[in-house]
């Protein structure tokens, strides 16, 4: 009996077990076939990669890194474009140096590079599910993303390890995986090769926020211009033990890269155009409105590559942090970005001294009296008005009142400058009433009316939440957002990462550099001239008369005016290798309006920043410090010079 039981047991175990596979993929983890079998799956994969793409947008600051909501130390306050209460020194990207910080850029980038490499390797296995055009397009897209990431790395660190395959551990040994830094040139060449692939294989159009052939071309014009500038202007070289030039590019390569930038920008010719929907010739008001609208029209023919936001799912706080003080929202933030007088003086259309500084004194050295603070700017370049809120100009239907104080002395015989030129000392207290903060005590004017010493948007002596430079930012501020909605994490305007104006500026610069190094074949000088004049015409600025007026400074100045406050200028100043010369104990200038009580008029005082904020750019920062943790991980990663 017992033996029968054993037989039955044996039969049951031997015959009925092992019918199902035990080695199955976990059901709660999404598998490759789930993702790579439908276009929807690919979209999801791409959406994640795009969200990690290092774009210095509304959610980036050099203090806190990418995808951070708290942008109170704005990027533009590192370059002399703006002054900010919370950014009071020059610095490199700070989020980068903390070895334990998950947001350290180096580690973050290689995650995204792995994702793109994985995509490139896996997609062909599932190509039967798609058309050839789709596979080509997506492969190109992945290589665009990889190029953008390597470009973000190389512009920070110089040469970095090149990883073009998915690395597997423990299948591969540590020795195999330990990759040294490639030369800076090799990384730029990889960026170029990836973008060339994308240009060749991708379709001509895409949904907003995703790359296509022309996005890749525009991006290439940017990246190659960087490479050319490094080759031409960089002075710091670093070789590793194997004679790889990890910092620096041989000067002989400059023209190759400038030419690559130039050629890439030509691909966009006729495909995009400058935004001129509300523009009208000889109409400053229309040109002003057109430049404001440029940043809000989703159908703008100028937008090449954008990053979209959508309340309440993906949001930022640009409006809440940057509106003028008098339009402050419920979170109590405002006025983080206050354009410097140095930035305003780049533009034309108001009285200037011979050295290009604003002229607010008469021939005797006395202040000129104005009826209101905006008078001097009445015929200023429309692009300036659209970028900067000038004191007294209108925003959201309100006149933005910026006033430093009230002068109570007599205007008879003229008012002399309050503080000496190039002095950072505070204003004297005799004959000047001022306010420490927004809780003001009104001053009784001679005509009996009451007036607050400072304007509604500042400037206060002890509170930084005000127009500390005498100006406030307008670019990208939503002109229609009600103050009740001006809150953190409530804005959702689109970030324009690449617009056609930049491509024109890239081309003008590359063309000029090629022309000045004597390269013929094309009339580069004429091309640069046409491009710059296109930008100027749209901006409402005076056109250049002749190509021979072009200098490298004209082109760079145009770039600073056009691209100001778009988080690009810091990189430009770095690749031109001029930031250490510009910021050497530099104090930026401000414009302080005063009301003259006895005259009922305004005076404007141009002076150095009263807060005495100094900027000194350390030349080491041209190549950022590689996080110490990354150096410690590998004996093959060498640190950049000086750290």
């Amino acid at each position, binding site marked *: 009996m017992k033996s029968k039981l054993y037989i039955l047991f044996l039969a049951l175990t031997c015959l009925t077990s092992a019918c199902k596979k035990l080695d199955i993929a976990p059901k709660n983890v999404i598998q490759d076939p789930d993702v790579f079998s439908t276009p929807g799956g690919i979209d999801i994969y791409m959406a994640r990669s795009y969200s990690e793409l290092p774009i210095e947008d509304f959610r980036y600051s050099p203090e806190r890194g990418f995808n951070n909501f708290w942008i109170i130390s704005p990027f533009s306050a590192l370059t002399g474009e703006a002054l900010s209460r919370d950014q009071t020194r020059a610095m490199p990207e700070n989020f980068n140096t903390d070895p334990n910080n998950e947001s350290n850029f180096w580690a973050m980038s290689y995650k995204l590079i792995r994702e793109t490499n994985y995509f490139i390797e896996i997609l062909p296995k599932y190509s039967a599910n798609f058309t050839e055009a789709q596979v080509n397009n997506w492969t190109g897209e992945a290589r665009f993303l990889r190029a953008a990431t390597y470009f973000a790395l190389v512009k920070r660190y110089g040469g970095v390890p090149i990883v073009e395959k998915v690395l597997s551990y423990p299948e591969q040994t540590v020795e195999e995986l330990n990759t040294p830094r490639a030369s800076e040139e090799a990384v730029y060449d990889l960026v170029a090769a990836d973008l060339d692939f994308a240009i060749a294989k991708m379709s001509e159009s895409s949904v907003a926020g995703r790359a296509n052939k022309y996005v890749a071309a525009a991006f290439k014009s940017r990246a190659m211009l960087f490479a050319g500038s490094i080759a031409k202007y960089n*002075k*710091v*070289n670093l*070789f590793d*033990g194997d*004679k*790889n*030039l990890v910092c620096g590019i*041989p000067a002989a390569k400059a023209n190759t890269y400038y030419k690559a930038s130039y050629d890439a920008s030509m691909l966009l010719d006729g495909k995009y155009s400058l935004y001129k929907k509300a523009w009208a010739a000889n109409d400053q008001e229309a040109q002003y409105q057109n430049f404001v609208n440029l940043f809000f029209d989703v159908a703008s023919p100028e937008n090449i590559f954008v990053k979209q936001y959508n309340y309440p799912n993906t949001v930022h706080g640009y409006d809440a942090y940057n509106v003028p003080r008098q339009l402050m929202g419920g979170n109590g933030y405002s006025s983080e970005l206050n354009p410097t007088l140095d930035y305003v003086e780049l533009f034309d259309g108001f009285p200037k001294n011979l050295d290009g500084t604003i002229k607010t004194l008469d021939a005797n050295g006395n202040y000129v009296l104005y009826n209101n603070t905006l008078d001097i700017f009445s015929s200023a370049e429309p692009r300036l008005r659209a970028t900067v809120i000038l004191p007294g100009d209108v925003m959201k239907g309100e006149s933005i009142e910026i006033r430093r104080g009230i002068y109570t002395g007599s205007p008879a015989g003229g008012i002399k400058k309050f503080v000496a030129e190039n*002095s*950072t000392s505070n204003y004297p207290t005799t004959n000047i009433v001022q306010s420490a903060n927004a809780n003001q005590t009104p001053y009784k004017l001679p005509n009996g009316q009451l007036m607050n010493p400072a304007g509604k948007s500042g400037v206060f002596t002890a509170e930084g939440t005000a127009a500390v430079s005498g100006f406030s930012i307008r670019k990208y501020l939503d002109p229609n957002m009600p103050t009740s909605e001006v809150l953190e994490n409530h804005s959702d305007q689109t970030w324009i990462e690449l617009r056609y104006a930049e491509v024109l500026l890239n081309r003008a610069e590359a063309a000029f550099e090629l022309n000045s190094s004597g390269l013929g074949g094309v009339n580069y000088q004429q091309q640069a001239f046409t491009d710059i004049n296109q930008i100027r015409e749209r901006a409402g600025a005076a056109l250049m008369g002749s190509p021979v007026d072009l200098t490298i400074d004209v082109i760079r100045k145009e770039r600073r005016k056009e691209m100001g406050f778009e988080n690009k200028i810091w990189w430009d100043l770095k690749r031109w290798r001029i930031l*250490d*010369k510009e910021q*050497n*104990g530099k104090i930026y200038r401000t414009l302080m309006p005063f009301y003259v009580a006895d005259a009922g008029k305004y005076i404007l005082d141009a002076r150095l920043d009263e807060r*005495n904020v*100094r900027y000194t750019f*350390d*030349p*080491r920062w041209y190549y950022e410090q590689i996080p110490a943790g990354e*150096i*410690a991980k590998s*004996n*093959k990663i060498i*640190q950049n*010079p*000086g750290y």
Partner: protein
Amino acid sequence: MKKIILYLSFCMLIAGSSSCKKYDNYPEPAETLTGSVTDIASGKGVQTETGSGTRVKLLELSWNDTPTPYYFYSEQDGSFKNTKIFKGNYKISVEGPFVPLVQNNASGTVTVDNSQVLNVAGTSHVDFKVEPFLNVEWVGEPVYNAMAGTVTASFKFSRGTANPAYQLDITDAYLFESPFPYVGNNNKDDRYSNQVSYSGASGSALLGQTINITTKDKLPAKTTLYFRVGARVAYGLNYYNYTEVKQIIIP
């Protein structure tokens, strides 16, 4: 009861036998390295700033050929002393406002290498004779202008190297002022320190001539201040060459 004793003895066994006493199996760094960076021409120490000027680079060769470098900064006068160095075989060089000790050609081949290889044990000493980019020297004593409350410094600079590759344009000269003797570009009082910039070759035209720079604003009274002049060429990390520090008692 028996159980408790068992547990207790188990705990004691764990506590008593684990975690030993030694924290490390390698002797602590106890060797001393001293040295100096001197001008090959004058034999004087090459003046620099503390904490961001001349620094010593140590490569410990005992374990591999490409070690992670260990750096420390020299004193203001170019001398250095570090009493916490691991015993070992080091390749030592210095980086600062002078012709680099290790030079590459354009293809990355090391053409000049004046590093020194040294077994550091006990107290070891190493001297580097270098060619500073510039020699910056006082001309007379800095003068206090009682009326204006400023200090005027007279100085001159000259080339410290005959190597034409390092005879670059002088970008600026700077009179540094600080209430502390460790005065320099990284430790200066911006209200009074004064910088004079030279564009193009205009600085080179002043080589060997006496130059005056005056502090910017009225200095505070009844205090002791320290002054120093720096000048630099645009090379590498734009280090300054300095004069020695002078102390002035402001009445």
